[in-house]
């Protein structure tokens, strides 16, 4: 036998107060465009490999709605579900896992309190602890720093030191969002992604910057990523998950093929 390594393609949806935000152009009926359940089903039909919901709600009440979203989605689709955003404690992990999330991603809260990674990993296993990182190239070009609050605050922490520490504390996966590339649709940051991948043993998911088919190919080959996560290209209908996978297959990258 030879090892089978399949790259994953993962749509990511931002949720605010229980509704998906950023207009999603799948539905004729505009009122359905923010329905997390319908979107999850849509991506299941496209046979996305996993699904990520990112809660950008600021309020406590809104966060509780995320638990409802997790429950509804976990009951209606048979695919791996990651939830992130506003996860500050082991209790938050527990509540989301009990609601049906398979993996939980932490970002700012892990920077403020790295022990959260260890505590969650000890309680629930490394397989469900995802360390999500926003990084930005240092002005002098010498590497990348970890940022907080969507890139507004430079923590001064070096990206590579942080991924080493995250893995050591028990993170089972790393999602790297390079702020320079995010939202630009000019491609993933290949160098940053590859550098992270070469420094850890856990899977690395590239995020931020996907605009065209080649971008996915590049980050999964030159960028060495195990998976690619994207939002707008999928939501705005520029690309479908299937198109991306067919393209990758055509260029010799192994992905889970579409099952008719």
């Amino acid at each position, binding site marked *: 036998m030879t*090892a089978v390594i399949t790259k994953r393609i993962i749509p990511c949806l931002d949720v605010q107060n229980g509704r998906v935000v950023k207009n999603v152009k799948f539905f004729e009926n505009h009122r359905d465009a923010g329905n997390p359940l319908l979107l999850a089903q849509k991506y299941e039909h496209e046979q996305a490999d996993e699904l990520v919901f990112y809660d950008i709600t600021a309020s406590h009440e809104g966060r509780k709605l995320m638990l409802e979203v997790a429950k509804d989605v*976990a*009951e209606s689709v*048979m*695919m791996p579900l990651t939830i992130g955003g506003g996860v500050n404690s082991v209790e938050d992990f527990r509540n989301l896992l009990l609601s049906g999330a*398979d993996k939980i991603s932490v970002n700012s809260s892990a920077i403020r309190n790295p022990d959260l990674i260890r505590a969650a990993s000890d309680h629930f296993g490394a397989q469900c602890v995802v360390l999500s990182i926003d990084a930005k190239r240092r002005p002098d070009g010498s590497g990348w720093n970890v940022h907080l609050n969507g890139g507004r605050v430079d923590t001064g922490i070096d990206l590579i030191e942080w991924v080493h520490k995250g893995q050591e504390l028990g993170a089972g996966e790393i999602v790297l969002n390079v702020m320079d590339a995010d939202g630009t649709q000019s491609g993933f940051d290949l160098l940053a992604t590859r550098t992270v991948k070469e420094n850890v043993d856990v899977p690395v998911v590239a995020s931020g910057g996907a605009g065209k088919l080649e971008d996915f190919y590049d980050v999964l080959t030159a960028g060495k990523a195990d998976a690619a996560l994207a939002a707008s290209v999928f939501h705005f209908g520029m690309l479908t998950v299937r198109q991306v996978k067919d393209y990758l297959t055509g260029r010799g990258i192994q992905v889970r093929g579409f099952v008719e």
Partner: protein
Amino acid sequence: MTSALLVDYGSGNLRSAAKALERAGFEVKVSSTPQDVETAQSIVIPGQGHFGQVMTEFKQSGFEGPIREALQEGLPILGICVGMQLLFEGSEESSMPGLGLLPGFLKKFPKGYAVPQMQWNTLQRVGDCPILEGLTPDAMAYFVHSYYVPEESGVQSGALTDYGVPFWSVVSQGNLHGTQFHPEKSQAVGLQILQNFRALVEAQAPVSR
């Protein structure tokens, strides 16, 4: 209606598994009461997290005795992920012994590929494995795990998967079945496996107990 007893011994969320079993045509009873095993038609043992912790919870739950008896009586049993790992003799992850119902000892994936394995992977059928009925050779299932059942363990039938090392991703031994991956997360392939399990339960002569 064919029923499945989904064992709730504190190993976390059972919602996805319960819903997937319902979708496969089971009437599902989620239970933390070991006595319920007596009236069960089939048993599903879920599990996620650390082998030692899951095993400890299973031991404390009181389900071990009734499930061992049910296995002897021929009741179809399905273990999922760490719920399958528990059926073996033990794991490098913990000094806690497993249930020893299947031969073999779990090892940690060597360095080389990313660990945990977190991806879709193929299932190469070996011997008589009724829960893989109807699946094409390119069928893939979703895996999340760091420990594996080595090919050289004494398992006779099921499916092998390769992630740098070949390992048993499905085991079938008599009425005892297990999947290292999550059928409830494996879309159409997972649903087919759960439906196959239901067919087994239905084909089973009623257990007198």
